């Protein structure tokens, strides 16, 4: 008779934010009972989903995971998600420190580089067993997605990178758009908005009659970030350099570039496209850095074009 058996159990998880049941197969290790394994798995599952305030919606098969950029939270995808909710399974989350993520999970050492955030993204993917997912990232999350796709490329079938920049500070033969002094000024500016921050970043809504569904849920949490975490995230973002990572990506990618984007200028978008192995770039008519907010239809069209190709 052979040594240990492996037992299998099932956990059904109903998450308040999810719209359906999710089924998880649990495999117990030889030294634990099924019950122990199920309880442990349940604990882990709940904690990753809770840590990043993961929201799951949609009726489709192909998973699509959205990663917000510096400054806000998953609500910034609100205007885009309706276009994909029927055809895909949408996964949204908040980076630790943003939105309704679990701030107690913030670890200065872990999040002192973008790798910490990439690890979180991969944990969510593992937790939900995502494979061949479409990744949509904005700003700094484009590089977070790049790092994750290098580590576990089988999890991603496509990368959509909105306003990417692998490095913000100018270098010899590289125009990131900013000098070191600019970034230092930015970090000081962060501090000066700190005192005004809590007043302004949790404002009372001033009469938006046309959008009544912007409820309680939004008005205190959107763009609310712990000031210290915001400062470190800003430093990590704007001092990062991921140029050498670009050529390692093995997933087909799309760069969505706006005109007149002070944060990720067109030349930087071109640099990203040129250094990714398999990539395309589309320049929108929209200006600024957040086309998914300022020109959602154009953005949706660009993404759909890419996915259908």
């Amino acid at each position, binding site marked *: 008779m052979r040594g240990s058996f492996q037992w299998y159990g099932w956990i059904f998880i109903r998450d308040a934010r999810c719209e359906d049941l999710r089924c998880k197969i649990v495999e117990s290790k030889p030294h634990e009972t099924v019950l122990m394994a199920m309880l442990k798995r349940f604990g882990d599952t709940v904690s990753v989903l809770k840590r990043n305030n993961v929201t799951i919606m949609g009726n489709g098969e192909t998973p699509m995971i959205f990663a917000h950029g510096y400054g806000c939270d998953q609500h910034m995808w*609100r205007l885009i998600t309706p276009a994909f909710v029927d055809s895909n399974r949408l996964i949204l989350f908040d980076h630790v420190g943003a939105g309704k993520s679990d701030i107690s999970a913030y670890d200065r050492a872990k999040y002192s580089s973008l790798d910490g955030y990439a690890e979180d993204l991969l944990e969510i993917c593992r937790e939900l067993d995502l494979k061949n997912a479409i990744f949509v990232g904005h700003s700094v999350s484009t590089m977070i997605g790049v790092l994750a796709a290098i580590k576990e490329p089988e999890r991603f079938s496509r990368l959509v990178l909105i306003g990417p920049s692998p490095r913000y500070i100018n270098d010899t033969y590289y125009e990131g758009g900013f000098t070191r002094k600019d970034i230092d000024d930015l970090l000081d500016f962060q501090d000066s908005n700190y005192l005004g921050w809590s007043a*302004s970043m949790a404002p009372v809504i001033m009469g938006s009659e046309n959008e009544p569904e912007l409820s309680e849920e939004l008005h205190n949490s959107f763009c609310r970030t712990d000031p210290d975490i915001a400062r470190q995230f800003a430093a990590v973002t704007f001092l990062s350099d991921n140029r050498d990572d670009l050529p390692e990506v093995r997933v087909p990618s799309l760069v969505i570039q706006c005109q007149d984007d002070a944060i990720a200028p067109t030349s930087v978008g071109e640099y990203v496209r040129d250094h990714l192995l398999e990539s395309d770039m589309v320049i929108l008519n929209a*200006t600024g850095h957040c086309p998914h907010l300022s020109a959602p239809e154009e953005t949706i069209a660009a993404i759909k074009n890419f996915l259908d190709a």
Partner: protein
Amino acid sequence: MSDELLHKSVEELYEEGPCGYLFTRIDGTILRVNDTLLTWSGYARHELVHARRFQDLLTLPGQIFYENQFFPLLRMQGSVKEVAFDFARHGREPLPVLINSILRTDADGNPTLIASAIFDATDRRAYELELIRSQRSSEQLAAVVRMSSDAIISMSPTGVVETWNDGAKRLFGYAAEDIIGTYIREILSPGDEVSWPEIMADLREGHPVQRDMVVQCADGHSVDVSAGFTPHWNAVGSLGSVSVIMRDIAERRAIERLQQDFLAVTTHELRSPVTGIKGNAQIMQRRAEYNERALEAIIAQADKLQRLIDDLLLASKIQSDGLTVVLEETDLTAAAYRAVTYLGAGEREIRVEVPEQPLVVFADQNQLSQMLTNLLTNAIKYSAEGEGVTVRLTRHGSEAHISVIDHGVGIARDDLPHLFDRFYRVRDTAGRVPGLGLGLYICRRIAEAHGGRIDVHSQPGHGSTFTVTLPMQTTQDR
């Protein structure tokens, strides 16, 4: 009052009031500005309306903030209240402002217009910076107090402990939560020369007090501290609180004890050769005759006295001025023979082993001979009767080694690390502790002043080898 007057007043208030009004498209293109905002910007109207975006009027950090946070917030919430920006003014210093904005949508719900009210926040920014600055400096101060190894505490005018830093906890063992609220008197005693009421009286008059005191620690033992009390006044002009810094003076006390010991020992050591000299002289006086032995004894004791005094003087000089060396070319072989001869062969056999080639170093002749004399004297002192002592000179690469080897009692392992410390004295075979404890200290300082070092190897019962290493400099190095 006519409608026209009211209308005109509204217009004027809109254009010239204390607030800047701004209307832009969703992408930030400026559609309308009032006169106040125009003045603040430093541009002409045609340079703004349909010509620039609102973002272009901001400093670079502000632009990043606008794209990453301000616009998303506005877009998602429909309004933003009191966000701080810096207006990059044309040809002038940036103006700190606060902005309140509303997003206007059309009938279909599409956003079309951003309407903003902008306030000059120069004063507010100044207050904020002041607040941040004073927060930072008080955090720094708190950090200094926290990290200090001294005990830094504060107490009320009646002596009740109000704050207690980590240093105090480490020194005395009491946790902050246990001792705050109790009287400091319960653990801190002033000693005999002064009383608590006298200390408090001094403090009330505004005089800081510095006293040596004794603290009763949590585990029962006492610690000697030097306590500095500083009074602080409150707004009303009376004593508000007293800060106390306490430093453990155990080390200072140890040094004081060491100095007292040293004084006692020195007096004893100096007295004994003087007694010998006097005694022998008196013998000669009483017998009124020339006595060879007595005279030899007198000269020997006088030599010993001279050496003691030389050591004392040198140690004192090292302490105050450091050791100055006058270097000249010295043949170590000759120096070794000189030192041995000076000590006199007497009852001991001192063997000198030298290499074929002369060993030349740059050395101060006086100090070199003093060092060799000290080492040889020690070797003889700690050897048994009739045992020989060896002086061996060798060359190792670019270093010259002078080894003084004895086969005496050796040195205990516990003594070895402290051997070259000032005032360190080791028990001899008879259990006495002779000497000032300066000889080896002086040897070490001399060796170091020449760029060398001194080491010892010893086995109790078998003897000791002291090795001085000196660099051999070629003339080119000088």
